[in-house]
């Protein structure tokens, strides 16, 4: 190739190919991201934006009105995440394991049906479950009554102690399809020979799953965990659709996303405050960054990826 010749002049087509993507991405995503971090060091005084250093963060963590809300939202967000990790991912893995069993009939049909909730919007999911669990309509109490468990019923979404767990489970119901699909793909990529070798040694059925398949799909489980983490700490829509911006009852379902929305946009009597909103956004950014770094440098390095 005539490398020296092309080196001499600028290859404009590379610039043309890269420019639109880099421009839109930088202008609408990266620049606002850093601008939001920057805005968290400012405040409005007499209609003028002035630099206040760490004042917003001092308010957020030092002023009880703010810090109580922040820690409440963060704690709720952690519980939201824990439920996803403990319920969504195991169910997803179990369903994928069953689906990937050889010569299973209707596998495509089950796969398609179980993925349906994932494609619905949070608005539909939030309201549908709100109606189903509502004591006025009575589908949930009616069904529990039919199997003799009516005493278990409570207006779950209206009780402070249950509301967050109920909404987390609704979100689990919605997103089980994603871990299921990713694990299913990972299970299908395990070569037959390995499983056959295990079979010769008498490892079949469940023990084949625990001893051979599970160690091989650990990297995929790692990816699912970090995806769950990022999407949970950035969640908003389901809580907003089901409980409104106030994340009732009494803020018991408030998570970082709804807290940031209320702060930044305002609601009812509270005026919106973009600078405090930025401060919360910066805190969320830091949490997600720490989580992603822990995964990339702590977990992913230890998981061996097997190349077949």
């Amino acid at each position, binding site marked *: 190739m005539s490398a020296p010749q092309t080196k001499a002049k600028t290859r404009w087509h590379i610039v043309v190919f890269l420019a639109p993507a880099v421009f839109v991405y930088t202008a609408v995503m990266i620049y606002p991201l850093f601008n939001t971090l920057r805005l968290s060091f400012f405040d409005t005084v007499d209609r003028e934006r002035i630099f206040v250093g760490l004042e917003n963060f001092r308010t957020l963590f030092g002023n009880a009105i703010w810090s109580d809300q922040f820690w409440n939202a963060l704690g709720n967000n952690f519980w939201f995440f824990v439920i996803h990790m403990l319920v969504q991912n195991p169910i997803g893995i179990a369903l994928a394991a069953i689906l990937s069993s050889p010569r299973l009939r209707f596998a495509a049909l089950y796969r398609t049906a179980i993925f*349906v909730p994932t494609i619905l919007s949070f*608005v539909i999911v939030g*309201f*549908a479950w709100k109606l189903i669990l509502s004591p006025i*309509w009575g589908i949930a109490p009616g069904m529990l009554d039919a199997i003799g468990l009516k005493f278990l019923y409570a207006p779950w979404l209206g009780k402070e102690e249950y509301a967050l767990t109920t909404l987390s489970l609704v979100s689990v119901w919605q997103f089980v399809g994603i871990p299921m699909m990713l694990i299913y793909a990972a299970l299908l990529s395990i070569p037959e020979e390995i499983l056959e070798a295990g079979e010769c040694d008498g490892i079949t059925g469940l023990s084949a799953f625990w001893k051979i398949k599970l160690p091989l799909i650990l990297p995929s489980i790692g990816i699912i965990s970090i995806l769950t983490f990022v999407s949970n700490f950035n969640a908003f829509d389901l809580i907003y659709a089901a409980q409104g911006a106030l994340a009732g009852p009494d803020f018991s379902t408030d998570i970082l996303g709804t807290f940031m929305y209320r702060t930044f946009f305002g609601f009812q009597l509270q005026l919106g405050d973009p600078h405090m909103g930025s401060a919360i956004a910066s805190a969320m950014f830091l949490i997600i960054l720490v989580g992603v770094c822990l995964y990339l440098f702590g977990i992913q390095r230890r998981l061996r990826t097997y190349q077949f």
Partner: protein
Amino acid sequence: MHTAREKLSTKLGAHGVLILYTLIALFPVFVIVTNSFKTRRAIFRDPLGLPNEESFSLIGYETVMKQGDFFLYFQNSMIVTVASLFFILLFGAMAAFALAEYRFKGNTLMGLYLALGIMIPIRIGTVAILEMMVSTGLVNTLWALILVYTAQGLPLAVFILSEFMKGVSDDLKNAGRIDGLSEYKIFFVLVLPLVRPAMATVAVFNMIPIWNDLWFPLILAPAEETKTLTLGSQVFIGQFVTDWNAVLSALSLAILPVMVLYVIFSRQLIRGITSGAVK
């Protein structure tokens, strides 16, 4: 005999679990859609029954059609989704081609820079995005949404597409160069048609989150004439909380377009996920 029977029972067990979970997954959709066709009395007296001659009613749909501007909302959602997908695919494929095809200074760095956005959600920057849209006058226009979704979709699109483009044969491109095709022609005429399956995967991955998003329509384009279907149904249902017929009909109408899209693209979507495009 013994093992055959054992195999049959594990098979039945597998189907049992899958059927149970399928029912759990579809039950809410079923309840919402069937009840939307019933009279108010039947909705409450027999919520699990199918509509029959006596209980059949379209009153909810009539209310929705009279009150909500669902057709306009639908059109807005359609414009935003299609335009965003177009820009994600066009700009994403162009950038992916540059990264995969040419060796230049900063290639790796540029790839890493574009990949940053895969893990960091764009919502974190909402405060500054809103300020920017207000100052450029784009707030309450569909362009605000299209730009945001394009930026949001680009990182993963570039990542997936450049993996695919590395697989396109060099001989083909060099043959094109010998025939005197420009680099642009090589990209648009030779390479783009070959990566169509990957582009379809990217499109399907982006389509549903864009269609269903509530956050950005709520913040950037809440005006009546720019409401998307997701935001529109949220507002409508909020206003009609006590009119169960209308709420159930609105929910069913909101489910309908996504289901249609899903039925059309589900094979593509599932193939995309299982072929490891997101690994």
